[in-house]
């Protein structure tokens, strides 16, 4: 037998100790002076490190990101970014300036066009586009960060952190980094002698820096009711009557967008008139959408757990602690990892929108020239085979799909789209742009957001297609064409087959659901402006200035 090879078993810990020694030799304690942050970053980060720059679609460690982008690429290069979003200009600067070379992420939103360009120029290597929970999972397996640059509301002298309402991804990132030999650096908005509550204990945090301005937060989930159209009201009426009511959906997640905002604003009016209060939409995995305020105030909503907070909703959330999760200090506690888990396993329905859908029901928000990623949609818009507990909605969907003896239920995964986007771009297409993007990205798979076999229903202005009831791929294709309106895909329908699907209740039009088109009016919305939302909240909701026009 060979003697066991000599191996060093604590190389991560030793590497961490050397990094901390380098920082100490430059005179750094735990609190870093703001004008020396670049010195610190260059001291503790090494070429080839995996770096997580905290940011998601809401709060951003923007000061640390800009500081990292200002580091010397001769010293820091070949960094591999493992992070939820690539949303800030400085995130992209890291690649353009030669500091970072590889990216594993979930969402790129506003930087989607710049990202696509970098990919075409082969200046960035994309590992994969993930859903959030999947990326968090990989933090604990093969993508553990060496360096976490995170954003907190406040730190005390010991380095304990208070995260405020926007906890978001911070716990998942710090857990993975701090317990696997990594270094955690936090930018904070303020230093306090006593924190309102301790969200991260000091010994998980190596350095804190008081940022020159509060971290950026995007009010991503605020939708102005004034922009909701009557077509969206019509679609919302169909969704409520044809899906929410029929399945008795109580536990759900809504995507971002005006389509689902319209549903939220019809709960106190249309849904209440249908006698659905207490029967639908009681428990939510949802950010505190301002458009949910009227439903909460009307008593529709029992509980909301949030991925993050929303700018302007702080005082309202704090005053509604029976509904929202709040800390001992009274302010909201959000947590993306746990809310995504709720979205996966505890929700009976996900309803969201997309930019493109093909004839198998596959959908993608990645279109030519824009790589936007998916965020949480692939997770919440999937039917989890690990689920074991039953609920009426889940059972009904499962039995529709597999017959009365089905041994499991199905999550309702609903895609809600108008058949044309702006500039008459059809949503329904023969082939997703994702396939061409796969080639330009050199990726193993096309960037599909929600797989067609997970989709249960499609809602368009033309009606609802129930894909659970389709028995063949051909039926499925005609069901999709049958609600694709006047897009080329919709015009190419087999009219006879579509009428047959309608007779069988697989396709249902507004008139089949007993909906009078004259009722599809903005008058049906519980709030028709941001000011109405403020009024509903009793003055507690404080919308950001860009949403104020009074």
């Amino acid at each position: 037998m060979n003697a066991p090879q000599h191996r060093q078993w604590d190389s991560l810990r030793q590497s961490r100790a050397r990094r901390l020694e380098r920082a100490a030799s430059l005179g750094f304690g735990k609190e870093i002076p703001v004008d020396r942050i670049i010195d610190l970053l260059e001291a503790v980060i090494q070429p080839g490190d995996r770096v997580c720059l905290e940011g998601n679609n809401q709060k951003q460690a923007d000061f640390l990101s800009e500081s990292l982008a200002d580091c010397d690429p001769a010293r820091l290069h070949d960094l591999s970014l493992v992070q939820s979003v690539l949303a800030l200009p400085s995130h992209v600067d890291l690649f353009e300036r030669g500091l970072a070379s590889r990216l594993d992420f979930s969402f790129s939103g506003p930087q989607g066009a710049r990202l696509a360009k970098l990919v075409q120029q082969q200046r960035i290597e994309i590992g994969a586009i993930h859903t959030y929970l999947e990326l968090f999972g990989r933090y604990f397996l093969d993508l553990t960060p060496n360096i976490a640059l995170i954003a907190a509301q406040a730190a005390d002298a010991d380095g304990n952190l208070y995260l405020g309402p926007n906890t978001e991804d911070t716990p998942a990132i710090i857990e993975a980094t701090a317990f696997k030999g990594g270094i955690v650096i936090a930018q904070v908005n303020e230093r306090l002698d006593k924190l309102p509550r301790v969200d991260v204990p000091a010994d998980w945090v190596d350095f804190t820096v008081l940022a020159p301005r509060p971290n950026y937060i995007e009010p991503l989930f605020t939708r102005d009711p004034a922009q909701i159209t009557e077509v969206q009201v019509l679609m919302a009426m169909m969704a409520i009557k044809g899906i929410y009511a029929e399945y008795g959906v109580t536990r759900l997640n809504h995507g971002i967008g005006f389509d689902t905002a319209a549903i939220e604003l019809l709960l106190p009016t249309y849904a209440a008139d249908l006698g659905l209060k207490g029967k639908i939409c009681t428990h939510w995995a949802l950010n505190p959408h301002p458009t949910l305020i009227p439903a909460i105030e009307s008593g529709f909503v029992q509980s909301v757990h949030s991925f993050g907070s929303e700018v302007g909703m702080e005082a309202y959330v704090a005053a509604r602690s029976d509904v929202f999760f709040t800390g001992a200090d009274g302010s909201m506690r959000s947590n993306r990892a746990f809310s995504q888990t709720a979205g996966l396993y505890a929700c009976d329905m996900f309803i969201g929108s997309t930019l493109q859908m093909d004839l198998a029901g596959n959908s993608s928000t990645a279109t030519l020239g824009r790589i936007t990623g998916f965020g949480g949609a692939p997770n919440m818009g999937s039917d989890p085979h690990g689920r074991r507990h039953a609920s009426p909605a889940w059972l009904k969907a499962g039995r529709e799909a597999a017959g009365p003896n089905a041994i499991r239920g199905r999550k309702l995964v609903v895609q809600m789209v108008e058949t044309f986007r702006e500039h008459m771009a059809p949503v329904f297409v023969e082939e997703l742009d994702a396939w061409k993007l796969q080639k330009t990205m050199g990726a193993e798979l096309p960037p599909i957001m929600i797989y067609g076999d997970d989709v249960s229903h499609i809602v368009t202005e033309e009606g609802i297609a129930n894909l659970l009831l389709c028995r063949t791929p051909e039926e499925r294709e005609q069901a999709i064409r049958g609600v694709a309106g006047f897009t080329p895909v919709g015009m190419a329908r087999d009219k006879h087959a579509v009428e047959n699907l309608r007779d069988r209740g697989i396709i249902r039009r507004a008139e089949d659901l007993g909906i009078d088109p004259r009722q599809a009016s903005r008058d049906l919305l519980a709030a028709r402006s941001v000011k109405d939302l403020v009024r509903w909240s009793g003055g507690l909701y404080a919308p950001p200035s860009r949403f104020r026009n009074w």
Partner: protein
Amino acid sequence: MEILEFRFDSTPGARPNHPALCGVVGSGNLEILVQSGELPDCCQVHIKTSARGFGTTWQAVLGDFAASHAAGGTTIAINDMGATPAVVSLRLAQALAEYQGGAQ
């Protein structure tokens, strides 16, 4: 500006004396006036639109409307500012329901 004229067969419907007006001329929207026409089994449509080159789509949207509604005996005038087919279909259904009356 483009002017389009169509005529579709359609099941005869109620023909009240009062015309109905629905919608507004605004970006992405349209105004529809429905009134009594000459032929009881025909729906005649006159369109003024700011978006040129969508004649085939108009024909499909209006043809589908005439086939699925009892719109015979009407003349429909449309002033359009780039409404999508979704908006056009909804407005047509609203305007006809308004014209023919009946309980909501």
